[in-house]
């Protein structure tokens, strides 16, 4: 079979079949390559789009990136229904089967160790947003009567915002402490740029938690119970995800801030 090999994940052999109509990136069905008892799930993709130069260009095209990311996630989701996949980073492409086998062999120990660590676990995403605008909205509408009025209004707004930020930081810290003591592991992602979020407010916590699948309900309840009457605060839960944020070993997380125990090692 010709074409480059776009690899989604590595996993252990699984019994159930994937849905037959499942398509991955480039509208290609996912296939399996077995090597030393591990399986790489990949699609054969055209060189015209996935060789280095076209791929680099495509990655900066939002529509292409979005479509590819969703197709990648679709395959990971399908795998998550039947096994615990170890997801690869977006756009990991090999020349051919032989290059793919070479990689699997070189990383065999790591794959086995990590698949053992992640077996039966899922990732939950929790984000906290603060919306500092209500404080500003309390200011009387219309033009201030004088320069002094204007300055006083500004001062009050600034103080209100400082209080909101402080409350948000404390709230996020407490929530993270509670959730990471329940979860097996946690990671702090960079807060999302507010221009990218589709809800209002500024992202102050963007965390991922590794939770045994069977404890998920309890984890979700914990997030729910963390409800607080702190005004202007919003908590968003996403998941369950494949354990994207927990594939690295200790010391490999690079720029991602690290929390919890670092994920090593039984």
């Amino acid at each position, binding site marked *: 079979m010709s074409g480059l090999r776009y690899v989604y994940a*590595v996993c252990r052999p699984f019994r159930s079949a994937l849905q037959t109509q499942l398509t991955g990136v480039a509208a290609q069905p996912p296939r399996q390559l077995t090597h030393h008892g591990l399986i790489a799930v990949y699609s054969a993709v055209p060189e015209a789009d*996935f*060789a*280095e130069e076209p*791929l*680099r260009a495509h*990655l*900066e*095209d*939002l529509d292409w*990136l*979005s479509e590819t*990311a*969703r197709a990648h*996630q679709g395959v990971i989701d399908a795998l998550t229904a039947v096994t615990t996949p170890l*997801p*690869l*980073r*977006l756009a*990991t*492409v*090999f*020349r051919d089967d032989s*290059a793919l086998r070479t*990689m699997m062999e070189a*990383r065999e120990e790591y794959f086995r160790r*990590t698949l053992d660590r992640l077996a039966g676990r899922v*990732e939950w*995403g929790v984000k906290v947003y603060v*919306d*500092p*605008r209500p404080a*500003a909205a309390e200011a009387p509408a219309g033009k201030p009567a004088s320069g002094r009025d204007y300055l006083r209004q*500004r001062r009050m707004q600034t103080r209100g915002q400082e209080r909101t930020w402080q409350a948000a930081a404390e709230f996020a810290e407490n929530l993270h402490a509670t959730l990471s003591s329940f979860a097996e592991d946690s990671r702090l*992602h960079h807060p*999302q*740029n507010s*221009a*990218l*979020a*589709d*809800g209002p407010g*500024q992202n102050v916590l*963007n965390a*991922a938690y590794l939770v045994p699948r069977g404890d998920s309900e309890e984890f979700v309840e914990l*997030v729910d119970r963390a409800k607080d*009457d*702190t005004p202007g*605060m*919003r*908590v*968003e*839960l*996403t998941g369950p*995800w494949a354990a*994207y*944020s*927990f*594939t690295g070993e200790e010391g490999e997380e690079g720029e*991602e801030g690290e929390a919890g125990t670092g994920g090593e090692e039984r």
Partner: protein
Amino acid sequence: MTVVERREVALVDLLDRLLAGGVVITGDITLRIADVDLVRIDLNALISSVNENVPSPFQELL
């Protein structure tokens, strides 16, 4: 405070995981994603796609 559970995964959450998470392979692959300017991808591409008139909550009242 509200807890929101989304059905449709937001692209920004997806990219948090697909571009920052997942196993990074080096070696015989066509392109290491780390070679691409990720900041350019996940910020510029996305920001240019959202309405430029979204106000910053911290805009000074000048």
